């Protein structure tokens, strides 16, 4: 892809401490720390920010309304986005990037933070989403991903050991990352994963992501503006999104989910001008271990049904062909409701800045970031490149 003056560029990132609980912290002060931190990382000041896709947990102001950030940023703001899935992650960055490239604003911040129970607009990580034809039968998020995995195992012979191998690999990445919630908690073997209590077959406890508290944010501006800033700029080369239907109300059928995200892959890589084979480092959404297997099939790096064999043999390790979730992902790093969507981007940005120390992929030039997955019936993804 050719870069032009307004090409969206990520110039600032920040994550607060992530932990099972952060006593004394509130969602609002976590998101404030994250926003200040990301702006400082970019070498900017709050009054330089004229676009806000930032959650507003309150207290004070209209709940969830990003317009509240006008108090702290450039007043009046030129662009806002308030939905809880637009204030984080790939979807947030893509929408902010579109706003920047179109000239709706010059510099935007995407961010969120959470302490206490996750509850936004009627969604929650477990049950109690008021889903009339799902919850009375015991449906919850891990179980919805599980019914996709069960069918994949049935059709293709994907094994519990292959699924557990993903968990062990990614959790071992978190084991050696001081910022990961599960730092030092491993190392893990496939046998450890299979010996952990069954939650929702085929998923054991160690196949399921964490539940934590924390905040994170990032700053997006134009390529032209980025040239004057301190951090090494990371370009948004391409992106794509795909939504099958609203999540968790109807069963995710493997026959519908098998290609979920493939159109987004084509759009993202088509614009980026690179192929999935060119990607140096992967930030793959890992709410459960199995979804990583499916997403390598989605990316076309292996055929449908071949993902279980594809991830074997250390392919996802730092020295492997597809270094994946080297920060520990959501299985060993952090999950905070929406913040993990953003953490996927932050890890990719840091890899492309070449600042990741012992987990740095040498000379990484391109990164793939994905959010959501088959159980949720939507996927957002993007390709980032080192300038």
């Amino acid at each position, binding site marked *: 892809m050719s870069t032009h003056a307004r090409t969206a560029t990520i110039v600032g990132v920040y994550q607060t401490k992530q932990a099972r609980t952060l006593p004394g912290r509130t969602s609002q002060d976590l998101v404030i720390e994250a926003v200040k931190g990301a702006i400082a990382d970019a070498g900017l000041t709050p009054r330089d920010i004229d676009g806000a896709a930032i959650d507003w947990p309150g207290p004070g102001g209209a709940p969830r309304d990003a317009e509240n950030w006008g108090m702290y940023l450039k007043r009046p703001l030129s662009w806002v986005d308030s939905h809880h899935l637009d204030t984080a992650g790939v979807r947030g960055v893509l929408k902010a990037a579109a706003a920047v490239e179109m000239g709706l604003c010059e510099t935007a911040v995407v961010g969120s933070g959470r302490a206490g129970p996750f509850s936004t607009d009627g969604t929650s990580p*477990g049950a109690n989403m008021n889903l*009339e034809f799902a919850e009375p039968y015991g449906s919850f998020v891990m179980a919805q991903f599980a019914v996709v995995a069960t069918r994949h195992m049935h059709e293709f012979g994907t094994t519990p050991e292959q699924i557990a191998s993903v968990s062990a690999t990614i959790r071992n990445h978190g084991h050696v990352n001081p910022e990961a919630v599960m730092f030092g908690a491993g190392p893990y073997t496939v046998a450890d994963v299979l010996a952990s209590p069954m939650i929702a077959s*085929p998923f054991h406890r160690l196949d399921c992501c964490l539940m934590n508290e924390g905040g994170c944010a990032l700053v997006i501006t134009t390529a032209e503006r980025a040239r004057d800033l301190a951090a090494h700029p990371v370009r948004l080369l391409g992106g794509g999104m795909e939504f099958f239907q609203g999540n968790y109300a109807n069963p995710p059928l493997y026959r519908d989910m098998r290609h979920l995200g493939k159109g987004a892959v084509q759009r993202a890589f088509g614009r980026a001008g690179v192929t999935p084979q060119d990607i140096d480092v992967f930030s793959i959404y890992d709410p459960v271990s199995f979804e990583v297997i499916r997403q390598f099939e989605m990316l076309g790096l292996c055929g449908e049904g071949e993902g279980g064999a594809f991830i074997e043999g250390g392919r996802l390790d730092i020295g492997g062909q597809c270094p994946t979730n080297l920060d520990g992902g959501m299985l060993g790093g952090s999950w905070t409701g929406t913040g993990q969507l953003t953490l996927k981007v932050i890890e990719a940005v840091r890899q492309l800045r070449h600042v990741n120390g012992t987990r740095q992929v040498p000379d990484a030039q391109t990164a793939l970031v994905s959010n959501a997955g088959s159980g949720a019936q939507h996927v957002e993804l993007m390709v980032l490149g080192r300038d």
Partner: protein
Amino acid sequence: MTTDTPFMLAPGVMPTPTLPAVTPLTRPFWDAAAQGRLMLPRCNACHRHFFRPEVACTYCFATDWQWVEVSGCGCLYSYSVLHKAPAPGFQVPLVLAVVELDEGPCMFSNVVGVETENISIGMPLQVAFEQVAAGIFLPRFRAAR
């Protein structure tokens, strides 16, 4: 004169602490279930069954549809055996099932009356209504004979 007696779950029936949040749109489904009948929306324009109930047909967007009784026969498309209670009050192990009905639509349910190790994808199923609260009957599924 009526007497309010607390609802008692019949022996062997799994509890459902998370009851369906019934709306005017879905009330006919639950009223029929209380009579032991499985009803699905069927579009009067394209004549396909769809599920969940929606204001418009999910195939052709027509708003002209009606409730029709269906066979209650289907097969197991996929499942997960839950070993962690999804909310307080559920008993585990519990089989979260995706049932593909003979009429086409798929729905979440539970497979009951089958040992978990005997559950397999593709097994034929038959609806079995179980009362889980006063006036609330859930369509669960048993192995078809």
